[in-house]
């Protein structure tokens, strides 16, 4: 499939991932438009991380198709236009904050000037300017999370995959993360994130509710709660899970 700017940012067709007899992702059909903030929502083990890893080309699907920015998921040509923040901190603990950011900037082909400019701006945003020359090992868990996010944003990706970006993050930082994701959406960046916090999904323009690797509902948070006739997404998820699914609302 040729790259095409008019195609969705992410598209999957009957995407399947099996580990032996266990089906982690079960015939998933997704379409995420450019500029959307899309949340993959579901409990632990529902297949969220597996989907993101397949979209990033880190694991191979068992069946079906996946396209990212108009190209096959995992195509190397797409990598410079996407950003990925794994669930783990995924930073070099023996390097300083600056060295980590420089490394990822250089890998994405940024010039030294661009790296320094973006680094200064991002460190200001994550409020870690004075920790620039500290080794990551000396930072708290929350600080590491912020640096990890900054590393995935440094090269200005069009499409950002964030795997559980707010896990283990205090409420204040979670709020600032979401305000930044909102700012990214305003700049036209597509954000695909996974979370199991139902209460923060209202920040997303659309969400996909996952259970046992299947998409049991998709739409804006309001569309989902209204269609089920409940107040919260958590109640909607429980109601849909009891019904045993319902592919599209």
């Amino acid at each position, binding site marked *: 499939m040729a790259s095409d700017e008019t195609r969705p940012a992410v598209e999957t067709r009957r995407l399947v991932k099996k580990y032996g007899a266990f089906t982690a992702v079960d015939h998933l059909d997704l379409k995420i438009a450019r500029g959307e903030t899309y949340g993959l929502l579901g409990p632990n083990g529902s297949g969220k991380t597996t989907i993101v890893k397949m979209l990033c080309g880190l694991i191979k*699907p068992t069946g079906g198709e996946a396209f990212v920015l108009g190209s096959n*998921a995992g195509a190397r040509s797409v990598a410079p236009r996407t950003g990925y923040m794994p669930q*783990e901190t995924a930073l070099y603990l023996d390097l300083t904050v600056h*060295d980590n950011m420089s*490394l990822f900037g250089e890998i994405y082909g940024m010039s030294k000037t661009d790296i320094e400019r973006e680094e200064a701006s991002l460190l200001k945003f994550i409020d870690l300017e004075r920790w620039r020359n500290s080794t990551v090992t000396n930072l708290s868990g929350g600080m590491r999370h912020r640096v990890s996010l900054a590393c995935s944003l440094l090269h200005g990706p069009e499409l950002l995959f964030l795997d559980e970006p707010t896990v283990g993050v205090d409420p204040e930082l979670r709020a600032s993360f979401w305000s930044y994701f909102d700012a990214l959406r305003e700049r036209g960046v597509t954000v695909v994130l996974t979370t199991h916090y139902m209460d923060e999904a209202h920040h997303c323009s659309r969400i996909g509710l996952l259970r046992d690797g299947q998409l049991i509902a998709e739409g804006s948070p309001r569309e989902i709660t209204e269609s089920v006739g409940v107040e919260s997404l958590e109640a909607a998820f429980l109601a849909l899970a009891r019904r045993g699914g319902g592919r599209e609302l």
Partner: protein
Amino acid sequence: MSFSFRRSFAITKRVFRGMRHDRRTVGLIVVAPLLSMFIFGIAFSGNVTNVDTVIVNLDEGYLAGRIISNLDEDTLDIRFADSEAKAVAEVENGDAWAAIVFPEGFTTNVLAKLEDGSFVGDTTIGVRADKSNVNIAAEVLRTVRDAMTQTISETGRESPVSIGDRPVYGEGVEFIDFFVPGIMAFAVFQLTTLLTLLSFVGERTSGTLERLRASPVRESEIVAGYAMAFGVIGMLQASLLLIVATLVFKITIVGNPFLAYIIVALLAVVSVSLGILLSSAAKREAQAVQFIPFIVLPTFLLAGIFWPVEAIPSILRPLSYLIPPSYAVEAMRSVILRGWGLGDIWIEIVALLGFALVFLVASVKSLQRATG
């Protein structure tokens, strides 16, 4: 997207930047090879000395006395007993390693036998040694034999046969000269494999490898970046070892040290790719540590560091040829001690290149992305 040296170099820089804050690893890289050289160099190059020996001289003539005076006093600590039974008793109770007995009529009998080969009389110097330590027993016998040869020659009766020792290579070479090229290869192979193994298990468990694999960096660029870093580190280790070995142990360097650096760098590339390969079989650092004996022991025993591959039993020898450091040790010895050039060590270089190629391809495969 083709191979990018810039991206690869970014990985190389990452290794060095990490070491800036990791003094323990830097210490390991610098101190471990030096320590190995000092410990093994001193321990193995030492001669056997001060062996408690009891001599029983029953000879009435001059010959036994002359042989005794020609015995190496550094090797043997000599005291005397008046009977063989007393001397052997000292060996039996562990107070001496050997008893040397010169029989009655020794001088007379030897001289008679020199005049008439068919003369029958006791001309045997009895050596009753504690052979529970074969090295010491062998040294006692060698010392007695040397003293005997020297004494006979002093009497003006030279052997009609002599050995003309004119070495083709290795004039004045001692054990430490033989050993330093081996320890260079050993240190580089062992440390590079272990550090890469542990680094990559860390990369896998911390999620950094995933982040890298989701980025534009190619697997070959990651491997090349690490190989460049450890190639340079290997050459620095080799330089350090050569400098200290020259200054402290006064080792002989006949050949071109730069050729030795090339061999070391090539071995480092092999080691990096082996470390990456092994890391794919370890899920945690604790599992990686279990590989250490499999890296250290075969190299230590079979790569020809302490004794030549030719001294290894033929049933195990094929294993030596499957161990990359064997080729590096042989090539480095040839360069440093024989002064050989690239044209003389091409077989070892080709073997190392072959290992490097196979391991590099396999390590790149082990990191490969799912698609694209």
